[in-house]
């Protein structure tokens, strides 16, 4: 009885062992000399193979840096720290780039922008946005909150709260997956140190915006007139900040009647709650 178990186990083990010996021997015999920098580069790269650099995974990017001089700062996940390490390995000084994060340009949660009709379809923004009016939400530009971006995020950085997507900037690696996935084009890549942002994506006229959402931009231009640095402009009924010029003085945040412009350090959280 015992032999019935032991013999097969022994035979398979011996077989495996012999094959392992052959493989080990041939791994040594057929060794290919490759650029030793590739292994070093692979060690510093994050290894998530997201493809944000434009190459097929981290190894491919490492090979291209080492052999064909690909740009050193393409790794969005690793950001400046990784770019610096890559520079050290390649013996080049890297000028660090601004860290970018994804930002959802919408604050119209379930209470602020009501639904036009009840949606009972797939829990997926792409299919919902194909319906009349671009989805159930009153504002046809707003976040549908069905979580298509949550599903594509490899870093667990997005949650849906009260019907809108919120990005955890500590976890966001700016890989751009959500930006591509969002059918409303509502997610934007912004510099992480820009604290003042316009939380609206609506090109509706003032009247429609007023009707559709409590916190939508009504293009009143108060921000544009208040800004001393020429950093915010209203075009097509929507305020937009030029992050290169913005000094984060909060003047526009203070003056915005609809609390559309926010300082994401939550200075205006209290103000917004009061309005609501």
């Amino acid at each position, binding site marked *: 009885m015992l032999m019935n178990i032991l013999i097969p186990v022994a035979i*398979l083990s011996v077989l495996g062992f012999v094959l392992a010996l052959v493989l080990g021997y041939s791994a040594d015999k057929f060794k290919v000399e490759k650029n030793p920098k590739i292994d070093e580069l692979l060690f510093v790269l994050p290894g998530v193979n997201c493809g944000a650099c434009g190459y097929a995974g981290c190894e491919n990017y490492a090979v291209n840096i080492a052999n064909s001089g690909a740009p050193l700062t393409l790794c969005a996940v690793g950001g400046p720290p990784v770019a610096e390490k890559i520079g050290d390995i390649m013996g080049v000084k890297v000028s660090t780039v601004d860290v970018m994060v994804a930002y959802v340009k919408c604050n119209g949660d379930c209470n602020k922008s009501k639904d036009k009709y009840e949606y009972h379809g797939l829990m997926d923004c792409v299919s919902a946005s194909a319906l009349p009016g671009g989805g159930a939400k009153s504002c046809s530009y707003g976040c549908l909150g069905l979580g298509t971006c949550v599903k594509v995020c490899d870093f667990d950085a997005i949650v849906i709260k009260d019907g809108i997507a919120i990005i955890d900037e500590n976890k966001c690696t700016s890989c751009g997956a959500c930006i591509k996935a969002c059918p409303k084009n509502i997610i934007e890549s912004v510099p992480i140190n820009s604290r003042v942002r316009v939380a609206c994506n609506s090109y509706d006229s003032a009247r429609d915006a007023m009707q559709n959402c409590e916190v939508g931009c009504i293009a009143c231009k108060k921000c544009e007139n208040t800004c001393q640095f020429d950093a915010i402009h209203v075009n097509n009924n929507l305020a937009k900040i030029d992050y290169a010029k913005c000094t984060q003085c909060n003047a526009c945040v203070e003056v915005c009647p609809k609390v559309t412009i926010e300082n994401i350090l939550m200075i205006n959280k209290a103000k917004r709650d009061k309005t609501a």
Partner: protein
Amino acid sequence: MNILLIFINAMLVNNVVLSRFLGICSFLGVSKKKDAAIGMGLAVTFVMAMASTGSWLVYKFLLEPNGLDYLKTVAFILVIAALVQFVEMFIKKASPTLYEALGIYLPLISTNCAVLGIALLNVQMELSLFGSLVNSVGAALGYFLAIVLMASIREKLDRVSNIPKSFQGLPITLVTATLMAMSFLGFQGLLK
């Protein structure tokens, strides 16, 4: 069974991809470019010939005498996986261009059910060593034929035809594969 019959049967009548539906993954994956398809076909031919010989020997001299018929699937997977590793190292050394062209599909051969399927079929059909070698080379050439035909069709489709947007990419490939499988059905009349 006569050797020629085994060969024709494996290559055309019971084509491994288009009649037995084995190895579909690489068949769809590597059939975008003819050059890569030829490389993949050759790699599969090489691996299949070696794998069926190896697995036949293991079966005949190790498993059958000990009454371990039931272990053949596990043992064959082991043999095939090791062989693929070996082939990968060999190609990496011998032809880096081919290695680049095959990309991630070379390791896929180790989980290619066509290779395992043929090794198991050899044992099931109770072929001799030579018979199983002929059977597996025939099957591999059938795979080669199917994937090269497919790659040629796809190259031509991409170049000249105006495919509706909803059919571009994988859908048209699957439709093509269906039509190819149906036309290969015609070979069923070859053997009676």
